[in-house]
């Protein structure tokens, strides 16, 4: 069955989307982005005029299948080089973060 022009009506609140996407947005930004998202989703909405019954989705495009390699260690990075790429480290070279378990810890 073909459907059309329903998508923009079901766009969840930008507040909820921003939470899922883990991006903080100011009130003003939320309002401007809401308009843009609706415009984009209305454009994308055209897909619903295409019948895709019995059409397989394309995930990979060049026909490669089951590409494997030998189960061998292939890690050549020096520890100090990798530590340097970390945003914040403590004196022992461990990644420094806020406490994981606490009042404001992520809920997953």
């Amino acid at each position, binding site marked *: 069955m073909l459907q059309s022009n329903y*998508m923009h009506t079901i766009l969840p609140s930008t507040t909820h989307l921003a939470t899922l996407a883990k991006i903080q947005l100011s009130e003003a930004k939320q309002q401007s982005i809401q308009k843009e998202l609706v415009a984009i989703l209305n454009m994308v909405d055209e897909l619903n005029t295409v019948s895709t019954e019995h059409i397989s989705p394309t995930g990979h495009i060049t026909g490669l299948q089951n590409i494997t390699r030998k189960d061998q260690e292939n890690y050549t990075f020096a520890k100090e080089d990798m530590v340097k790429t970390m945003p914040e480290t403590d004196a022992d070279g461990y990644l420094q973060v806020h406490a994981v378990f*606490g009042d404001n810890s992520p809920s997953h």
Partner: protein
Amino acid sequence: MKTIREIRQQLDDKEISAIELTEQFLDRIKKTNSQLNSFITITEEQARKQAAQAQKDINNGTQGRFTGIPYAAKDLFCTKGIRTTAGSKILNEYIPPYSATAIERCRDAVLLGKTNLDEFAMGSSNEYSVFGPCKNPYDLTRVSGGSSGGSAVAVASGQTLFAFGTDTGGSIRQPASFCNVVGFKPTYGRISRYGVIALASSLDTVGLFTRNIDDMAYVLQEVAGSDGLDSTALEAPTEQYSTFLGGDIKGLRIGIPKEYMEVEGFDPRIKQVCTDAIKKLEQLGASIAEISLPNTKYSLPAYYVLNPAEASSNLARYDGMQYGKPAKDTHSLEEVFLKTREEGFGAEVKRRIMIGTFCLSSGYYDAYYKKAQQVRTLVKQDFDQAFEKVDIIFTPVSPFVPFKIGERMADPIAMYLADIFTIPADLAATPALSLPAGFIDGLPTAVQIIAPQFQEGKVLQVSYALEQALALQSPALQL
């Protein structure tokens, strides 16, 4: 304009040293970069070291095909010890501990620097770069195109001999057409993606900018091929690309998709450039036929589901923990994520992450992401069916000439339309090349040559024949 092969000969004959050659290009970059803004980072010191090493190798007679040849890479390719920003504030200070495979394959060449791009390769004008827009060398008030704008401009303005770019929806071919250079997106996976910062993994394709087709065949030969570090890199044997140049194209069947010519807003002057190029191909003995790619109009909407969805997943790693400087004055992990991403990402990146998050969210996945993947299948089938009748598909690259800086910034959809002719070849993962084909009021425009998957050689063969037949005279740059 010398080809890379000729410059190779000069280096080997010691008519010029690798050091002199590198200095010439560094000079040119220094003189022009403040106007063009094509380079984010100029790797002057490393370039000099590499050039000195190259000259040693040449003196010892141990040089390879790339030894001493200057090049540049879009700042999306990881370069060991050299800042790699993706045009984003969030990676402003990121120094990778390794190099992309593409960069490794140019080990003997001389890296001049990292070029400007739309943030995380999201854009068609280079205006979404946190380092400011890259300017079109033919008119500094106009955009370079994007997202690989810096690489296109660097080749066009003589700052480098060749440059790497990436093409997800047109990010090589569109800026190539705006800047009068050859831009080639080979088959998906032809060049390894290892070490290239990911945008949309099912579409991201590494490709090249060169000044002519001869150079393209030369460079592609060196960088194409399978890679143990990228399981999507193609195992298929790579061809000797240079052997395709110069062969005649008599009897070759070339299809013109009628849907492309009917696109709303398509500049009739560019259509005329296409018509003239088609006539040349006919004179060369190719047979021209109208074909149909009926799902063309769904390519753009399908792309703007697939791309944001995959981008939203790929960009989850920029969280102030794995990558990106964490935001200050935070009190919890969650706050670090939220603030780091608010401060570190620009407007277009936020838009795409939000759209992608929505399209992948529980209850909407089938209606959006899966639907778009099904439409992708239809687009691919269009190409498969067309290639039963023709050997090559010929289309325009951009529906309009380079636009003014700022003209499309406020309207994301107007920006997305810039890629209407380039997206289908990404969805079908076919090799597609942008060939300079004419000037309209002094601004460059191009045509696109597309072959079935894996047939890079055929693209180069037809492009070379057309390039020679057109013998395009470019206006001199005022730089």
